[in-house]
């Protein structure tokens, strides 16, 4: 049996005496679209930073493709943040070429001649896939929020990451654009066979896009020392994308905990 793409074994994250995550054990299969929901402060972002490698667990093990993962960001895990995901000083094309240039030119971080043309072609292809083929030479400041997120996705995908992490990627977009982005990410997920972990505040979005929804929350609380109990996965719901509707009582519970 092949090992799961990503496996968390009894993970704890503590800052001083504050416990953020406790006893988190789960595995993520290749090709799944995991949506992570939960109230603010329930460790969603910590969970994402763990997978990203920005943070190391205090206890427990994190396995990527069956081998322990180093706590450092690397090109095998792509990321799209809510903001600041693209470089403001580069045009759309150069933003996407950045990843290729870093891999092929360790010292100059710039390509010339045939290599450059090749990188450019790859980048144009990627930008076309996200619908930005007419904005190659535009700077991010001149783009709308939706276009910037499209660019950020293209920029990440050009590295063919094993996992794509999305940190509330569509939170700042207006509803119409958000629907377009849902269609886009679903298409890219299917076409490129991506594995996606998405943190979101929008429960509807989580159930619409995910093949699995993880809800983070504190299992127990101590009113005198609320920081001494960490959050864990309280619901782990596998979904069939076609018929994805959570049971009424689960939804009610989730909605009550997260007004957003």
């Amino acid at each position, binding site marked *: 049996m092949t090992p799961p793409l990503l496996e968390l074994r009894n993970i704890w994250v503590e800052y001083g005496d504050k416990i953020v995550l406790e006893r988190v054990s789960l595995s993520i299969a290749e090709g799944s679209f995991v949506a992570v929901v939960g109230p603010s402060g329930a460790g969603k972002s910590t969970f994402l930073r763990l997978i*990203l490698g*920005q943070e190391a667990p205090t206890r427990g093990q994190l396995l990527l493709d069956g081998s322990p993962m180093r706590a*450092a*960001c*690397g*090109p095998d*895990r*792509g*990321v799209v*943040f809510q*903001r*600041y*995901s*693209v*470089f*403001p*000083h*580069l*045009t759309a094309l150069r933003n996407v070429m*950045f*990843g290729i*240039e*870093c*891999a092929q030119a*360790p*010292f100059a*971080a710039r390509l010339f001649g045939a290599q450059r043309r090749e990188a450019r072609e790859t980048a144009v292809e990627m930008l076309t896939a996200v619908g930005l083929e007419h904005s190659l*030479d*535009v*700077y991010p*400041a*001149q783009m709308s929020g939706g276009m910037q997120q499209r660019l*950020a996705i293209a*920029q*990440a995908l050009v*590295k063919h*990451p094993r996992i794509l992490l999305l940190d509330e990627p569509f939170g700042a977009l207006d509803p119409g654009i958000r629907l377009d982005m849902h269609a886009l990410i679903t298409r890219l997920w299917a076409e490129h066979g991506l594995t996606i972990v998405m943190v979101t505040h929008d429960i509807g979005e989580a159930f619409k896009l995910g093949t699995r929804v993880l809800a983070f929350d504190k299992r127990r609380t101590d009113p005198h020392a609320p920081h001494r109990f960490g959050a864990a996965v309280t619901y782990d719901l596998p979904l069939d994308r076609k018929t994805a509707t959570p049971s009424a009582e689960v939804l009610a519970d989730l909605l009550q905990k997260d007004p957003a």
Partner: protein
Amino acid sequence: MTRLVDIRLQRGTRLLLGALPIVVLLLVYLLASEARHLENPADKVLPTFSAMADAIRAFTTDREPNTDRIILVADTLASVYRLGIGLTIATVTALVLGLLLGVMPLARAILGPTIAVIAVIPPVAILPILFIVLGLDEASKIALIAIGIAPFMTRDLTSFVSGLPAEQFTKAQTLGANSWQMTIRVALPQLMPRLIEALRLSMGPAWVFLITAEAVASDVGLGYRIFLVRRYFAMDIILPYVAWISLLAIAADALLLWISRRGFPWAHGGSR
């Protein structure tokens, strides 16, 4: 009724209104000068415009004995040379240190306090040290300008780089960038417009240090000339010299702004 803060002006009107105070100041000077000359025809404090024109003619035609150059040209070249070298040294230092300290918390921990201490030393207070160590030649004047502005620029650039969104550096790492690549492809290009901005702000202090150094020990230069002719109450020379220095400062500022707009359009919200 339109509120005062809501009044928007057209370009022509704005330029006209901006010129108005300057014209008024010139008129006031003219009237004051005339009043003084009515009382004392030999007045030197507020020279007439024609006296200034004569002085300008003199220092743009007479030659400076040492270099055999026209006085104004010799002074300007000497001052611009000192200013140019001093600013270049300061800019390069600030660029390298700002980048290093901004990107690497380790470097910031080691060098940050030292730079903060150097930055609070009033540069003119160490001018005597510079004269003793480097002599009275060009080196001490250039050093005063460089030491005077480099710490400020370094601190400004350091805080700018360390204030860049952390997401950008995380993103760069997930795109496979190493520390060096992040420095030259993410931090450096975004630093450049800020560097020019810091340089523009430093031009004022730089002129102060230049003129101070020239006033104390020099044999040519704009500051030297002003302090030389002060002994003869030659306001007819001093005033045009001050105007000339202002003109040079404005030109340098405009040039830097133009370079920034041209080279880094993304920082000015413009397009390619």
